[in-house]
Each structure stands twice: as structure tokens, then as C-alpha cells.
């Protein structure tokens, strides 16, 4: 029984637990886990899709660059929600522990727990990449705010009619 087969057999179970663990960081996690329609439940569905993709990449030893699209799918959302940076990325790490627990509970595959070094190293790389992506999206958010201010929308309230720019007191010549 090799590791690849272990991942294949337990993939669904691991991913499901990972998704549930990640979504448990929301108060209304029940709905986010249950509703599968991407458009009726963008947070839950995007996180599920992304973790499914990411797990495949992590378990097959893909290049870390390939982690970026699924990580963006998750972190773009979590970086505008009320999480601290560590809270935003913490659930990614959870897959290491979930995988160990599931393998350890499987009598035939217990020994695979000792072969998880590469997988766990890949998870570490994904978590590091997630910090970069978190910062990227935070910077994008600030840029959007700056763009809005520059575009003139702020004139709606934050500026005055040009006539108000004239001095309030009459200048005596």
C-alpha cells in the first residue's frame, strides 16, 4: 500500500474534514458547509472547490507555483473578512493534522503517517504562499480605495462646491 494510493482512497474524507474545519471559522458554518450551489453560497463553494484542487496538488507533489490559483480563490475572500492575518491562513495548516488523524485511524495504512514529510513540507510552502497572497489582496484593497478617492466619487461628500473655496472673510484690498 503506497502513499499515493492512501491519498486516493482517503481524499474525499480528508477534503471534507478540511472544508468543514475551514468553514467552522465562520459563525454560520452550517449553511456554508451544506449549500453546494456556487452562486447561492460563494464562500462555502469557493472554499470547497479550492481545497479540493489544492489537496490534489499537495498530494501529488506539484510545483508550489501551482498552489497559487486555488490559494487565491480562498485568500481573496478571507482577506476582506473579519480575520486577523493568521486567522485568515490558519485553516490551511489543518490538512496536515487531518491527514495524520485519518491515516492513523486506518489500520491498514497506519504506517503511512511516517511517510508524510514531503506532503507536510508542501503544506508549509502553501501556507507561506498564502501569506504573500494575503498581502497581495490587502494591497489591492487599499489600491481600490485609493482609486475610488481619485476617481472623484469622494466628491460626493468630501469636497465642497468651488465657490466654497473662496475665502470666508472678505479680503480688503
Amino acid at each position: 500500500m503506497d502513499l499515493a494510493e492512501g491519498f486516493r482512497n482517503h481524499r474525499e474524507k480528508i477534503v471534507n474534514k478540511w472544508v468543514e474545519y475551514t468553514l467552522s471559522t465562520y459563525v454560520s458554518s452550517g449553511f456554508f458547509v451544506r449549500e453546494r450551489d456556487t452562486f447561492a453560497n460563494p464562500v462555502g463553494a469557493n472554499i470547497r472547490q479550492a481545497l479540493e484542487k489544492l489537496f490534489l496538488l499537495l498530494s501529488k507533489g506539484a510545483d508550489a507555483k501551482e498552489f497559487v490559483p486555488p490559494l487565491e480563490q480562498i485568500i481573496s475572500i478571507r482577506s476582506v473578512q473579519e480575520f486577523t492575518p493568521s486567522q485568515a491562513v490558519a485553516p490551511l495548516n489543518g490538512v496536515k493534522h487531518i491527514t495524520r488523524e485519518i491515516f492513523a485511524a486506518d489500520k491498514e495504512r497506519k504506517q503511512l503517517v511516517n511517510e508524510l514529510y514531503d506532503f507536510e513540507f508542501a503544506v508549509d510552502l502553501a501556507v507561506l504562499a498564502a501569506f504573500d497572497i494575503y498581502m497581495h489582496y490587502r494591497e489591492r484593497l487599499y489600491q481600490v480605495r485609493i482609486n475610488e478617492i481619485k476617481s472623484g466619487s469622494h466628491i460626493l461628500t468630501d469636497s465642497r462646491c468651488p465657490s466654497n473655496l473662496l475665502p470666508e472673510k472678505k479680503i480688503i484690498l
Partner: protein
Amino acid sequence: MAVPKLEQLSKSVVQGPSLATGAIPTMDWMEYPAVFKSGNYAYPAKSEKVAYLDSQSGLHFPNSREWSPEDDDWKLPADWKEIILKGLKERLEKFRSLKIFMDCCVRCGACADKCHFFLGTGDPKNMPVMRAELLRSVYRNDFTLAGKILGKMAGAREMTVAVLKEWFMYSYQCTECRRCSVFCPYGIDTAEVTMMLRELLHLVGVGINWVLEPVSNSNRTGNHMGLQPHTFKDNVEFLVDDVESLTGVRPNVSFNRKGAEVLFITPSADVFAEPGLYTAMGYLTLFEAIGLDYTWSTYASEGGNFGLFTNNETMKKLNAKMYAEAKRLGVKYIIGGECGHMWRVVHQYMDTMNGPADFLEKPVSPITGTVFENAASTKMVHISEFTADLIKHGKLKFDKSRNSHVKATYHDSCNTARAMGLLDEPRYILDHIVDWVEMPENTIREQTFCCGSGTGLNTDEIMELRMRSGLPRANAVKYVHDKHDVNMLACVCAIDRATLTSLMDYWNPGVRVCGISELLANALVLEGENRADLDDGFRTML
């Protein structure tokens, strides 16, 4: 070292209790206080703006002061509780709908997962049923027998400062988009519950600047920006110059012209801010193409009615201004531009507030002879209805290839879709002028998702909140962007044009936002035109 358990992982990262611990709430929802911190609330209204509004005829904005949501003490008037309860009593007597909405909810939960704020935050108090419950619990406590006797067991609670703070937080995490009401089997309009919450808060001087400053500007000069007549006129004339340099045809415009057949009113954002400017250039081009006898007004220079986001008296006053101007100028009827909540006010509230507008005539298109029976009472026709009718009668000539740089999708603006049923006219226009695709079914038409920044929440200090409440909309746009290479999000609302631009810049860079009239003008073939090759339509820099 032992392998840390999963539970310890979240604890090791997160200090203290928080959402990321995934802990099951052990307290009743009523016991969770609203916590204000930078980024999760819009700035309070400036004291002088509130005082100014309170001094104006027909308006009531008492208790102006400097205060901050982050302070423990909001400097409420000493008798704040009496003011709120008296205000609620008056409104329950005045608005039968409010009384019904308070009584008839059975908490079936059909609305719970339909709100974009809930979907983006996962905060249970953003479920429409719960948002209404914030008010309903106080209603039960003071206005129902069961609540008076059973108290908390009957879902009742006393009005306290903490409750008031909760009202402020969640009535400004609702854009009154009314998506939830589509799914309510009883037809409860939760937006009207939010409206009442905001009205009550204004009684004790609690409101936000992004709403009250535009309201005060509109009351003073007629538009959100506080533009004075000469500035408004100059801006429109700049746009006339632009249309001329792009097409070789100079649109005729007039201002405050008595005896014109039609008064045209649009959001002032269309005449001063990108990308609305291009939509306004579209109106000018269209009206020139058909030779419409119309005028702009520098007094009714705003379609938007932020009064809708404050209280019914202000909404009534700002709406009345448009009709007063129509009467003064002696026009036959009004054509309204691509605005959102202006149309909600006109279709849902105008008739009982200021209507019927009997001094105007039932709108008839001077070009096609079509009678707009749907506007028989309000005397106000939507530009898309008017345009679709022109196309239906073959009065406009298009070269669709002029929009070949665009692959569009259509965002149903909440107010026009759900509050006036304008669903097919914009689509009919798009069919004739541009290559476009629909977003998924449960995100369009009556089920459209809000931009996330309506009702005066389009301010930059709550950008994160706007991005998460706009996620359901952006997520559907992403789908058509990835699948069909959509690069333009068309809509018929000025707030949408401003806020969806930011939403796209965050979630879907490469997707721009435009009004329908901009795309229309791109494709419109004008008599006597001398048009350069405009590879970006009306946005081309010459």
C-alpha cells in the same frame, strides 16, 4: 514533540475567543454586543449637516452633535429611550405595513440565506429575519401582550443602549436591496424594516455622513455634490464638447427651458464622475439622434434620492423637487435616466407621497406615438423603456461592430429590477447593440445580487465590508468572465457604476462597468456623423 491536535492549532494561532476557534456559541444572540472598530462602520454625520437639515422646512433631524461609534458614550439625549419608543409607536400607527411585518413573520428562514451581507460575512445577524428581529424584539416587549407578560421567552427584550448600537450596526449592513423579500412567503419587505430602524436612529441624532451630506446638498442646491447651477451646466457642456469631438455631431442642449416637451432627470454622478460620464454622453447622443424636444434642469439636477435612506419626510421632499421643477417648466412629462433608487421612490412611494402628478400629461413618445400606460400616474418614463420602444419601431440605426471590443453581461440593478420590474427592456436594447451573455439564473432578474454598496454605503472607509457584501455579485461576474471572456458589466444605476467599478477592481480586474446608454451610443449611427475609429467607443482618448 507530540503532534498538536487540530483544535490546538486554531488556539495557538488565535489569542482569546474568536470566530476562528470555531466554538459553538454558548450565549443567546441577544447577548452578543455590536463591536465597532475602524473599517466596520461608516463615519457619523457631521454635526453641522444634521443641524442644517433640522433647520429646514418639512425635515426633522434633531440632536445634532459630534459622536463616534467607537466611543462607549454616544452622547444620546437624556430621554433617548422615550424618543425611540414614541417614534416606534407613531410609525406603527402610521404605517400599516410595519405593523404587519412586525406581527406576521413565522421565522420560516426562507430569507435567511438570501442576503448578500449574510453570504459574504456569515454573521447570523445579517440574516434578514434576524435583522428584523432586532426591531421586532423591542416591538414585542413594549407593544404586544405576550411580550409584556413573557418577556424573553416570547422573544422580547428591553430597549437599551446596546440594542440601539446593534440597530446602528446592522441597519447600515443592509442595502435595502429587497432580495430577501422576493423569497418571503408573507411578502415581508425587510428593506422597510431597515428604513424604520434608520428613521428611529435619526430621531436621536444617529446617522452617517455619506447619506446626510448628499441629502443636505440636495436640499440646498438640488444635487448630491452641491453643484451650483452654473457648474452643473458647465459639466454637461463639457460632455457635449466630448460627444462632438468623438462623433462630429454636436448635441443640442438646453437648461431650465420653459415649454420643452420633456424634462430629463438623471443622477448627478452621471455628469461629473467616471464611468457615469460616458452614460451621460450616451443620453446626449441618443436625444440628438431623435431630435427630442427636452431640457435639463439645474435645480432638479439630481435623480438620486438619498432621502429614501433617511426618513420618509426627506424622501418626500427630495422627490417633490423633481415634480415642482416639471411644473415650473411646463413640460408634458419626465424622462428619467439610469438611476436606481430614484425609480424605487417613483414607483413605490411617489404616488402616495406627492402624486398623482395630474398637472403633467400621460407620457407619449413623440417619435413613435407609444403611450406609456405604466407611467400614467407618475408621468415619468425610464430611459430604457423609452429607448427599447424606439428600437422596436426601427427608429434607431446601429452598427454593432462598433462595440466589438466589448463582451458584456447585464447586472440587474436592485431597485429597477425588484421595485419597478424593469427586466426585459435593457436586455432588448443589449440584444441590438452588443454581444452579451447572462450571468447564472439565481443571480439575475428578480434574484439579482446587490452591488453591496447601495443605500449610502458606497463610502471608502468601509471598503472591506463592501467587498464582502459584494462577493455574491462579483462571484457571478467572475463565472462569465472566466467562461465567456466578459469584459464589461452593464447596468442601469449610477451607484452601481461607481461601486461595481471598485468591486470589479478587487474581485475581477479587467472587467469594466458601464451604463446601457453608453453602449447604445457606441453603436448608434448618427446622421451627418464624422466619426474617427473609436477602438474603445466613447472612452477612446482622441
